């Protein structure tokens, strides 16, 4: 929040949106991105995306959250083992994320980790993350990032985190009337391509949601974005459109991803796409001339570009509330 003036040219209130469409215009979208980086609340309701700066107009929204029937937190891209200049101490920042979670006024029921738990798929890296996350006292659901399956096609990952999963590690579960689907799109990647779900997983997904009522809220979580953020850098998934076609009948679909180490949101019809902060290091905005590698920011700014996502579901509302909070 300290660097708010850098990001926020319009501190007075709502972002702009197009009333004639369900989505938002590009300008509104970009503003939402910018606000999210400083700690913002984006709520999708009745086809209109609203965004409030944390601590300003969000009193009424916070009341809604208190009545919320389900609250959980997404964390992502811990990259345990990374020690380059972009963040020489990923242990400290993951611990700061845990402190942030433990300080939330409404405690989440569980955590989702959307992959890149480790940097090099080493057992010691997974051990460190497990040890640090234990301090949340929460159940944690994981999907792998490409850094978690580097040398063994994910065998160790599944042994640790996917004992009840199908295929290469996908699974689904219900919590408080919300259906959660964890997908794997970081394996069997083909030359020149993007993230891949594959036919076996797509068939499973189709069957998983076939007999579900359209009123069931759906949360899909996977590492690489299931929307086309920036294909030139591989920030997208080849066969995500087919996966989403199975979810068309549902009134509320929330897609949570990581991988790109920055918050972004897009709304398309009934689907809200959202990417989370990393807890380790930021990456540049899509298309930035320096390329997609870890981005070095001044040390005193690092924790303002890392963070967590708090997600709240209130029964009867169209969409889930997503609050991105930076570590400071």
């Amino acid at each position: 929040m300290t660097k708010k003036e850098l990001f926020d040219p319009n501190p007075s209130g709502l972002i702009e949106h197009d009333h004639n469409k369900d989505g938002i215009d590009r300008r509104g979208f970009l503003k939402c991105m910018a606000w999210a980086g400083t700690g913002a609340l984006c709520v999708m309701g009745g086809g209109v995306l609203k965004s409030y700066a944390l601590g300003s107009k969000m009193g009424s929204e916070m009341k809604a959250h208190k009545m919320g029937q389900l609250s959980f937190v997404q964390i992502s891209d811990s990259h345990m083992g990374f020690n380059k200049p972009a963040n020489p101490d990923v242990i400290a920042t993951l611990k700061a994320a845990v402190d942030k979670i433990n300080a939330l006024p409404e405690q989440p029921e569980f955590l989702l980790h959307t992959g890149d738990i480790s940097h090099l798929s080493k057992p010691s890296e997974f051990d460190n993350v497990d040890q640090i996350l234990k301090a949340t006292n929460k159940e944690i659901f994981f999907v792998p990032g490409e850094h978690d399956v580097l040398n063994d096609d994910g065998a160790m990952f599944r042994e640790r985190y996917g004992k009840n999963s199908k295929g290469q590690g996908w699974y689904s579960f219900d919590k408080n009337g919300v259906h959660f689907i964890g997908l794997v799109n970081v394996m069997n990647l083909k030359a020149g391509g993007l993230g891949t779900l594959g036919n076996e997983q797509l068939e499973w997904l189709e069957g998983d949601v076939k007999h579900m009522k359209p009123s069931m809220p759906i949360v899909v979580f996977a590492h690489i974005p299931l929307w086309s953020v920036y294909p030139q850098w591989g920030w997208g998934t080849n066969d995500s459109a087919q996966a989403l076609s199975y979810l068309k009948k549902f009134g509320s679909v929330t897609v949570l991803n990581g991988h790109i180490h920055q918050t972004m949101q897009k709304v398309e019809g009934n689907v809200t796409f959202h990417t989370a902060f990393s807890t380790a290091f930021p990456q540049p905005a899509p298309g930035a001339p320096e390329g997609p590698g870890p981005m070095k920011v001044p040390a005193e700014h690092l924790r303002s570009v890392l963070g967590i996502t708090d997600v709240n579901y209130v029964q009867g509302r169209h969409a889930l509330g997503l609050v991105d909070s930076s570590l400071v």
Partner: protein
Amino acid sequence: MKRRLFVSTLAVVLPLALSAVLLLYPARARSEGKSSATEVQIDNFSFGPETLTVPANSTVTWVNKDDVPHVIASNDGLFKSKALDTDDKYSFTFIKAGTYPYYCSVHPKMVGKIVVQ
């Protein structure tokens, strides 16, 4: 007796070792000079050069200069490295002429090819 054997052994081994060093040194210097032509640098999520042309029986070495790991994998499965962390290297010897496209199996947008003549 033992001592004499040791001395005579030394007398034989030392000149041999010396000449070996003399023989090998220029050879090593030569191969070092050549190595830039058979090295692919991985930098900022790309292979440099993207297309590398080498004679048959060349050993190509990839060096990862990025802050993130990469995996070298040929499109047809002929070769695949372990995850290469920063400054890690991987080498493969190309015996036969042909074109060998490869990519990073972690970041598949990264592609390159080795042309063996």
